[in-house]
Structure formats: structure tokens, C-alpha cells
């Protein structure tokens, strides 16, 4: 029981990270019509920025700032140099260009920082554990990640639903051409949305640092899961991104947590572990297939 609670919290924490990426990605899809494969690279840049500064200075606050700044700056450069020219193009060309970006950024990171994964120290204030219910300790850092994620989700909700810019963002996601026709400076809106997406991706990356090893390739691993989230939630919908991320995060974690034990009773340990790892990786794709069968546009589609 306590194990289940722990696993569910781990799932929520993973879901929060997925949400931070998916929110940006779904807005960029929905508003600009651009498929940005390099979104995972922004996550990578955020993680590296924070990891390097944290190793040099030992300050977690500075690391956070560095991670956010690095991903935001990288995002703006990418938008200005590449993405801006892709708005009116086919998806094929967008895929090609952003695939090129991935190769460039991944290989650049390898040249600069090597293939050795970086490990980031947990900030001392958050390295302990809290008893969530008596007798069940849970790592403070993971709780903090969940808190930050939920806070950002709430902030994003307020921003999108209660502010004027947010109104334009919503309008842009459903009626792009109409917004343009009404004389809104869509270019500025695009840059803003892309920058916001980069910032969120960087935040997810820097928070993942102390939990995972920071290494080249981490961006694509999570990017593909983010795609699944966006498909399940529906393109252009932040609400969809949130629920999709929670579904994917919790399912993935629970499968990983409980499937090996389940299979071990049926076969030898090493075989069971490998099969369980594979099946739990496949689980979320099966859920995606199921959602597609019922609602091809996703659970909370913003577009028709």
C-alpha cells in the first residue's frame, strides 16, 4: 500500500516533467503549426546549464537561473535563425530542419562536455525526506518538483485563461488565421510562445538533473513520450497536456514498478526483468492506441 502511494507520487512527479515539455510543445504545434523535434534539445540545454553551474559554484539557486537562462536564450536563437523560416513550410521541411538541429545540438554537447554523464548534487535543503503520512517517508526533492510543476501549471492556467496575451494564445491555437486577420502582431506572439515553451522545457530539464544522469540523448527519450502526451491530450490544448502527462507519467511509473514482480512469479528473474522493462515501455503506447480508437483528435482537442 505504502509502496503504491510512493509509486503514484513518483508517477505524478514524472507526469509534471512531461507536462512542462508538453505544454510548450502543444502550444507551438497549436499556434504556429510547427513540429519542433528540437524541443527535447531545449530540455537538454536546461539540464546541462544547471548541471555545469551547480558543479562549479555549488549553488542551486544560481544553477536554476543558469538553466532557465540557457534554455530561453537557446530557444530565442533557434526561433530566430531556423523556426521563423519554417512557419509557412510543409511538415516535412520542419521535420528535416529540426532533426538537423537535434544532430547539431547533441553532437555539440558531446564535443563540449563529453559522453560521460554529469551527476548533479541534490540541494542540501531538499535532500532529506518528509513523512507524507506517518511512517511513509518520501524524498523532499521529488515533492518540491511536484509542487513547482503544479504551481507552474496553475500559473499557466491563469496566464492563458485570465490575461489578454493568454486570450490571444487561445485564439491563436483554435483560429490562427482569424487572429492574424484581426491585425494582431502574430510574429511577436510566436516568439513569445516559443520562448515560453523553451523556458518550460529548460525548467523540466534542470529539475530532472538531480534525479537522472545529465547526458546527451536525454532530450529525445523524453521528447517521444511528450509526443504521446500531446496525442493523448489533443494538439493545442494545455488542459489536455496536463491530463495526458499525468496519465502517461503515472501509468509508466506504475508499470515499471509492479510489472517485474508480477512477471517474476511466471519466469526466471533476468528474463522477467527484461520483458517487464519492454512491456512497461510499450504500455503507454497501447494507451495511446486506445485513445486514438475512441477519440482520434485526443481527449481535449483544441482544434477541429
Amino acid at each position, binding site marked *: 500500500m505504502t509502496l503504491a502511494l510512493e509509486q503514484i507520487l513518483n508517477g505524478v512527479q514524472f507526469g509534471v516533467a512531461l507536462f512542462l515539455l508538453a505544454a510548450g510543445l502543444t502550444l507551438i504545434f497549436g499556434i504556429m503549426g510547427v513540429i519542433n523535434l528540437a524541443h527535447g534539445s531545449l530540455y537538454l540545454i536546461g539540464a546541462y546549464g544547471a548541471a555545469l553551474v551547480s558543479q562549479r559554484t555549488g549553488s542551486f539557486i544560481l544553477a536554476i537561473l543558469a538553466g532557465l537562462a540557457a534554455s530561453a536564450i537557446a530557444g530565442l536563437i533557434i526561433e530566430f535563425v531556423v523556426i521563423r523560416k519554417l512557419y509557412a513550410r510543409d511538415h516535412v*521541411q520542419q521535420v528535416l530542419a529540426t532533426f*538537423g538541429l537535434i544532430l547539431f545540438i547533441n553532437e555539440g554537447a558531446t564535443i563540449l562536455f563529453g559522453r560521460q554523464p554529469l551527476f548533479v548534487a541534490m540541494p542540501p535543503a531538499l535532500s532529506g525526506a518528509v513523512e507524507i503520512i506517518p511512517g511513509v517517508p518520501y524524498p523532499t526533492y521529488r515533492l518540491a518538483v511536484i509542487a513547482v510543476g503544479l504551481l507552474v501549471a496553475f500559473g499557466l492556467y491563469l496566464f492563458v485563461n485570465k490575461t489578454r496575451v493568454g486570450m490571444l494564445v487561445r485564439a491563436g491555437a483554435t483560429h490562427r488565421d482569424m487572429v492574424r486577420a484581426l491585425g494582431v502582431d502574430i510574429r511577436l506572439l510566436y516568439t513569445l510562445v516559443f520562448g515560453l515553451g523553451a523556458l518550460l522545457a529548460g525548467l523540466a530539464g534542470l529539475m530532472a538533473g538531480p534525479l537522472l544522469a545529465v547526458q546527451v540523448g536525454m532530450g529525445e527519450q523524453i521528447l517521444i513520450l511528450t509526443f504521446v502526451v500531446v496525442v493523448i491530450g489533443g494538439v493545442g490544448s494545455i488542459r489536455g497536456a496536463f491530463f495526458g502527462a499525468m496519465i502517461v507519467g503515472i501509468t509508466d511509473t506504475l508499470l515499471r514498478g509492479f510489472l517485474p514482480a508480477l512477471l517474476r512469479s511466471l519466469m526466471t528473474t533476468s528474463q522477467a526483468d527484461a520483458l517487464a*522493462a519492454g512491456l512497461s515501455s510499450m504500455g503507454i503506447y497501447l494507451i495511446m492506441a486506445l485513445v486514438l480508437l475512441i477519440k482520434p483528435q485526443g481527449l481535449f482537442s483544441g482544434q477541429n
Partner: protein
Amino acid sequence: MARTEAAAGVNPGARRILLLRGAGLVVLAVVLLLLPMTANAIGDPALITLATRMIIYAIAAASLNLILGYGGLVSFGHAAYFGVGGYVVGILYFHFAADDLFLGFIPGSNQFLITLFAAMVVSGLAALVLGALSLRTTGLQFIMITLAFAQMVFFLFVSLKVYGGDDGLIVRRRNLLFGLNMANDTTFYFVCVTIAALYFAVFWRLVGSRFGLVLGGIRQNERRLAAIGISTYRYKLVAFVIAGIGAGIAGALMANFSKFVSPDMLHWSRSGELMIMVILGGGATLFGPAIGAVILVGLETVLTGWTEHWQFILGPILILIALFTRGGVLTLLENRRAPDA
């Protein structure tokens, strides 16, 4: 597009193009025939294996071109069928070597024609199932879903510890075909050339047929085709399956060629590479993807010779191609001749 109609026309310009094209084919055949001899003569037999790899990727890229170029379906998971084809060869050889039964009733095999056929059937079935689901969506969702499903198949093979899991599966000897010495790289090269020639001949007939025209129509305006009573979903699904079978053929050849299969064959970046080949050479053209395959495999070979970090150079090249050419190197030449495209 204009190309297929031009071939059927009778005006003198079209006839000249037809002649040029015939001459081009003859030159291509001569080059392919003489390549092994030349390579040995100049003391660079590695050229033969390089050419074999190019030919195998040409088949894979052409198969993707059927849906990506002709059908306008941006599938980002084509490596899945390439890998499935490879694994069919690997797994059948594994059970042949162990002399037991796959799933308890299918005997292994090392006969090239049998394993190739099995690879076509299995990759076609995989494409049928995943395509039927993926094609319920369009546009961005379709790109993401094909990618995600390919990733699912990738994890399936990673988890199969019996067949090597992460480490892959070694095929100790190439499959047998008649009495040929398949271990010889030149012989295997000619086997690949023959299969590629057959494949491209069938492909040419296919895209010129009514089916091919409907597929092109779907790319241009799916709604209009639906309005005149064509069930576009069915056409797209059949195209998806045919494309999957083509990739399966290429995968089976690759498994024989490198005598090794691993989940790496299904990695998402491999799907990206296949896509690049199609775009590089020009979609919706018969030989465009083949040219793209030659360019990309050649570029990789040259760049890896220079530096270990060749992707650092390839990345910006891809970005430049995406930003400054519209539809590949081939169309760049064609557009200069015929500005109507």
C-alpha cells in the same frame, strides 16, 4: 504530377525526355555492372560494400517515398518495418541454428527466398496493424503517432532477451540462395542489385497505375477524392502496407549484409535518416530517394573519415537543405527547366 503524364504524351519534347530517361537507365545499369570490377581494379574493394549499403537504403527510402512523397503521409516510423524485416531474418536463422521451433511450431530457416518472403509478410502485417491505427489521424498527429509506434516496436525488441535484447542478434552466415557463394561481397552485391532492379520496376508500374494516381490525388486534395466516392482511408492503408513490405525487404537484405540485427535498426533516428534520403533526393520521383540514399550514405562515409563528430556538420547541412531547397536536390534541377512546378 507532370512527370508521369509527360511520359504518356506524344509531343516531341516528351519523346526527348523519354529517350534521355532510357539512356540514363542504360548508363545506370552499366555503372552498376562495372562497379565491382572497377573497385577491384583500383584496389578499393570497400567500394563494393559501400555500394551495397547504398542500394539497400535506396530500397528502404523508395518504399518510404510511396507514402511520404506520392501519398503525402509524413511517416516518422518507417525504420520499424526495416527493423522487423531484419529481425525476421535474424530470428529465423537463430532457430535454424538452434534447430528448434519459433513459438513452438515455426521451424527456422537459412534459405534466402524463404526468409525474404517471411520478412515481407511480417513487416506487411506490422504495417497493416500500426497503419490502420495511425491513419485515423492526419498531419501533426500522424507524424507523432508513427514515431511513437515505431518506438514501441523498438522497445519490444529491446525487451526480447532471448534474441539478444539490447545487444542484438548475430547471423553467423548469410542465407543461402541457389548455389551462390553469398559470403562473397561481390556476389551479394549483385543479389542486391537484382532485387533492387525488380523492386524499382514494380514500383514504377505501381506509381503509374490507377492506384498511384489516386495516391497522388490524395496528397493533392484528399477531400475532393473522397467527394467523388473514393475511400481514401483504404488507399492510404494499402499504400502504407506496401511501403512497409518494401522496408521489410531492405531490412532482410541489411540483416544478411551485415550479418547482424539489433534494435539500432529500428531507432527513431534511422526513421529520420530514411526521411532525409527521400527529401534530399526529391519526393514523388522514382529515383529521387535512391539518389538521396547515395548522397546521405556517401556523406556519412566521407564525414566519418574526417571527424568522429560528423553529425555536427550533417545537422547544419540538413537545416540549410530544409530552408533553401523546396523538395530536394533533384527538383532543384527540374525547376530550372520547368518553372511550373
